[in-house]
């Protein structure tokens, strides 16, 4: 399900409206994922806290959204644009790619709570496709 020009335009249009809240969305989304899917905590056992709103969660949520921002800028070639991040996730972090879906869902729930008017079904389908393609690009170097 590759991104059409329409999808890319929709993602960029949505992004323009929400990008100022990127850090907040990232922190919220990661916090939500840890609460709603406790198995994801297994990746963060080295943190002093995995509580919603704690410093490590806020910082890491921000980092994750930084990756999403990068992906938006590389939307025409996600695999090439996210190569370094893919190598990081494949060889160092070794995050099970199934978790990318959970994070994507929580990013969308976060956006829905903060920007309900902007997160129309049309924006939703474009972002869902974009995050799925982002996840694929991130998994590129896994095997």
């Amino acid at each position, binding site marked *: 399900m590759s991104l059409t020009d329409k999808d890319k335009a929709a993602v960029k249009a949505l992004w323009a409206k929400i990008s100022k809240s990127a850090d907040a969305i990232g922190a919220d989304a990661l916090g*939500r994922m840890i*609460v*709603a899917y406790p198995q994801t905590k297994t990746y963060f056992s080295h943190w002093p806290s995995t509580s919603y709103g704690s410093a490590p969660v806020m910082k890491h949520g921000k980092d994750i959204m930084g990756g999403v921002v990068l992906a938006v800028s590389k939307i025409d070639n996600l695999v090439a644009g996210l190569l370094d991040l893919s190598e990081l996730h494949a060889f160092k972090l070794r995050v099970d790619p199934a978790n990318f879906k959970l994070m994507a869902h929580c990013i969308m*729930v976060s956006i*829905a*709570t*903060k920007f309900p008017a902007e*997160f129309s*079904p049309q924006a939703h*389908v474009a972002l869902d496709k974009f995050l799925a393609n982002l996840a694929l690009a991130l998994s590129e170097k896994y095997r």
Partner: protein
Amino acid sequence: MVKWTDKERSTVRTVWESIDIDELGPEVLRRVLIVYPWTERYFGAFGDIFTTTAILQNPKVAAHGIVVLRALDQAVKNMDNIKDTYAALSRLHFEKLEVDPDNFRLLADCITISVACKLRAEMNPQVQATWQKFLQAVVDAMCAQYY
């Protein structure tokens, strides 16, 4: 049987009471058809559901969305016995409607997103987790009579 704490029961009830089925039902089904277009396969009798505009304007889509959420109301009222409550519905979806059960998961995700749009900050992480636990129980019950 799924175990619910008192807090979880009250969370599900509170979320459900904040929703107007007549408003949310149409939104949910429209979202499913727009975000996951292959679900169109189950609604051949609905007429034109092949473009976003058509989906948004189709009265049968809106009406059926309400039907779906009315069924969800049964789950809210019978949280301790969702499996039995949905046995006939599950059999119907398998034997007669021939619905791929993965679609129940897609519907659940769209319900969560639509509810999140409505509840906004009230859908905090704990509420989201509990709501998703509830919908998972509903999805499991809908799959239970497939063989």
